[in-house]
């Protein structure tokens, strides 16, 4: 038996039944990481010692007959913009290369409480600010399906690690598609919860009104299991809603007869790879076969989503990045005479191009009269986009679209054409702008490359997208391309 081939659900079951020990599971995955990650580069930091200790504690519990947590013995990867106590957390930046947080993010605490085994911190675009994981100070991650291609981003380290069986589950974060786009590119399941469902305490912010922590698994059930663990209100995050702890896993069922599914005309008419479009239309037909009702709808403000998102995201990035100045922690330039020089050089040398581009744009927006006008307009349009969705969700349970308009691109291509890369998040950002939930689930392969289906749901209606994805996954046969890594 190759342990790394097991699902999270199977791992927990086998540990409980004493068919395998948590230590064996952990070692098998650490071996796998040692074997392939030198090439793949999904991890920035591997926490072998802590993981083995945690595994031993689980085995002790098994031995003592104690109640096991929901994640007992399951190897988990954590995107490196989620802080971990006493374990360095870099956000993929030179700025935080040696930053060791004194506290755990709320989501990390919950994983530990449920006996999950954190194997390490995964690679990402610097501060989660792009779509390919190439802007990481720690080098790009390769796509396990085709090593000449990017895994997507910014959670590319997590999605690659899950797809390559280095871990069974992983955490990511999603500001404008960073959970869904790389899940699509790596052919796995990625959930972007509603804004406020999961605590952001300990998530290093990129854009505070858009960021959410999300989960990855190789199937819907696994990704849902991790979501169940991390979701729910938190006194440390006042913007997290008063949502009780959830148990979506129990309500998952493959019967979706009568589900009302919307297919937005504006999305389907946007420029996209024809192979992607074909797969999504096939998916829509499959839903009909499952007894759902699929209809075309209109989201009239969809075309403004990108501009709205951009104005908000760069403004918030410029503010969120203001704390990195080389004073209390983080990178400090070697060579400075004055205080101004300390700030300018530390930031110039410690932050990467992509983030600095956003800081420049955001600073302009917040400091100029013109910029402020755009900024305020963006907030008004944001309300209109929300209204579009509210209207659709009055009648429909979920909205279907491609996760990305394209297939995974080659490493280095985005540097030549950044706008095309930004375009890969075009179907993702509306969910962030409107605070909705969404999931990306594999819907087929085109020329050996995975295509993701995005299912969006109303705020805090996670159960609808999870049910739809679960039923779809159960019905779809993905074939050899899907498992052969």
């Amino acid at each position, binding site marked *: 038996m190759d342990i790394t081939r097991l699902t999270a659900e199977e791992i927990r079951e086998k540990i409980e039944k004493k068919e395998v020990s948590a230590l064996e599971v952990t070692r098998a995955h650490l071996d796998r990481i040692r074997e392939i990650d030198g090439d793949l580069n999904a991890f920035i930091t591997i926490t072998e010692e802590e993981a083995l200790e945690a595994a031993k504690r689980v085995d002790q519990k098994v031995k003592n007959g104690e109640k096991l947590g929901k994640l007992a013995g399951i190897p988990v990867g954590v995107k490196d913009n989620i802080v971990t106590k006493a374990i360095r957390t870099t956000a993929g930046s030179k700025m935080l290369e040696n*930053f060791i947080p004194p*506290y755990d993010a709320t989501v990390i605490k919950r994983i530990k409480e449920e006996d999950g085994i954190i194997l390490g911190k995964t690679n990402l675009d610097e501060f989660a600010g792009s779509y390919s994981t190439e802007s990481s100070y720690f080098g790009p991650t390769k796509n396990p399906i085709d090593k000449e291609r990017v895994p997507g981003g910014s959670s590319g380290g997590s999605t690659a690690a899950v797809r390559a069986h280095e871990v069974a589950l992983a955490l990511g974060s999603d500001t404008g598609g960073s959970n869904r786009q790389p899940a699509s590119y790596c052919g796995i399941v990625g959930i972007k919860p509603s804004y406020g469902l999961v605590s952001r305490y300990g998530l290093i912010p990129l854009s505070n009104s858009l960021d959410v922590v999300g989960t990855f698994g190789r199937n819907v059930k696994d990704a849902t299991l991790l979501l169940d663990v991390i979701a729910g209100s938190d006194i440390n*995050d006042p913007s997290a809603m008063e949502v009780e702890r959830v148990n979506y896993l129990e309500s998952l069922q493959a019967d979706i007869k009568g589900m009302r599914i919307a297919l937005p005309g504006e999305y389907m008419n946007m420029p996209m790879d024809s192979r992607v479009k074909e797969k999504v239309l096939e998916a829509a037909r499959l839903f009909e076969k499952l007894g759902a009702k699929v209809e075309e709808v209109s989201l009239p403000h969809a075309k403004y989503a990108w501009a709205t998102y951009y104005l908000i995201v760069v403004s*918030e990035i410029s*503010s969120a990045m203001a*704390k990195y100045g080389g004073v209390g922690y983080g990178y400090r330039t070697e060579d400075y005479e004055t205080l101004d020089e300390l700030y300018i050089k530390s930031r110039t040398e410690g932050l990467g191009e992509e983030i600095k581009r956003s800081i420049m744009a955001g600073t302009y927006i*917040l400091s100029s009269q013109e910029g402020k006008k755009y900024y305020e307009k963006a907030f008004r349009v944001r309300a209109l986009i929300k209204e579009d969705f509210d209207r659709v969700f009055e009648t429909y349970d979920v909205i279907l679209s491609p996760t990305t308009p394209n297939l995974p691109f080659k490493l280095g291509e985005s540097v030549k054409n950044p706008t095309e890369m930004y375009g890969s998040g075009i179907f993702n950002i509306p969910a962030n702008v409107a605070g909705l939930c969404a999931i990306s689930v594999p819907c087929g392969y085109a020329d050996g490359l995975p295509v993701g289906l995005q299912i969006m749901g109303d705020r805090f209606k996670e159960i609808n997208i999870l049910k739809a994805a679960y039923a779809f996954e159960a019905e779809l046969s993905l074939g050899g391309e899907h498992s052969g890594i």
Partner: protein
Amino acid sequence: MAYKTIVGLEIHVELLTKTKMFCHCKNEFGGDANTHCCPICLGLPGALPKLNKEALEYGIKAGLALNCQIADRVKMDRKHYFYPDLTKGYQISQDDNPLCSKGYLEIESEEGPKKIGIQRIHIEEDTGKSIHTEAGDTLVDYNRAGVPLIEIVTAPDINSGEEARMFLENLKNTLKYIEVSDCKMEEGSLRCDVNINVVDTETGKRTNITELKNLNSFKAVATAIEYEENRHISLLKEGKNTIKETRRWNDVENVTVAMRGKGTTDNYRYAVDVDIPPVTIKEAWIDEIRANLPELPHAKKERFMREYDLPEYDAGVLTQSKELSIFFEETVKLCDDAKQVSNWIMGDVLRRLNDEGIEVGDLKFGPEDLAALLKLINDDKISNNIGKKVLREMFETGKKPEDIVKEKGWIQISDEDELKQIVGKVLEENQQSVIDYKNGKDRALGFIIGQVMKATRGKANPQIVNKLVLEAIEEK
């Protein structure tokens, strides 16, 4: 030519909440450097602020005491700038929707009562403190980072240094009354910046506004305003103008010195802090806070005049600080004669406090001790003059007045037989004075009485001595 000075104040006041504004760290002055800190007030990556309801409540209290309107919805904004004592690269503050607005505070100006407008009061977090060492290093102590503040901005209604000083005295008094701050300028819990310019009332020509910083006392505020108004006026007289700039008060040389380069305008890139959800302030909550506000200085002064029949001046002095007014009322409760208590407090007690630069709270004795002292006097146990000596002892040692009188043997002699003997002896020794008095030299009587007091080391009851001396002279 006539000139009018126009002054507006910006006052930062630290609130006495138990914990900081966005975390559970203790809000306490002092402590070893960087010991009252956590990921939130240090602004570590990923940490999120949580608005302390108590800070909001204290801000509302201050607003109500200063006759302000209270906003029905509060949002927090980020004010961006770079400085090492600022942990996040932005300060959480309020930009366009302050918690309180449109209030006023009254002062007694030379022309009578005058309302000084309060444009706004907003809540914000304090920064850490930079410490520049002799070796040239800069160290930062973040214990103060995240301590809640209110910033009070007055209308430009103040027209002199003295008015500014009076306003600040009143403000401090009011905020201490409602117990939202201890307003200690020396500990930095009250800080004041001044905006000043001068207008030539004949030509209408105005000087550019100067901002004054580093004002460490109310007196410094008044003196600095006077210095600046002269500077502005002399420039106007020369046909020149000031430049819009920030100047630092040098309290050694008593001059202002240009601080920042001219022409730089601050751009704080204000943006909503989305980490802190907006708070709706319900009318019922404001009503509750209003109902629980303690009696404010002005109301208390009126009541003292009414209830204790005190002159306006006395009532004003006694209510100038909450502690003093409480000390007064507690004493009166125990010994009835309000005017007598007022005289003692306004005289010997306040003089001593002012001389030593201490406050009522620093006294070694309480109202019950002052009341006991007055009772000794009123019961003719000691004379008024001995009473003053006893009070001095009380200041020094904090001992009970009864014990002091006993220890020192200061109990008044009222026994007529005993005094008769002493009087007789004194008259024997001072026959010339007796003759002088009989010859119409009234002063001689005073001398004789003085000799009797001296012989008893001040303990004789002066009224009785007076009577006995007159009787004895009659008999001669």
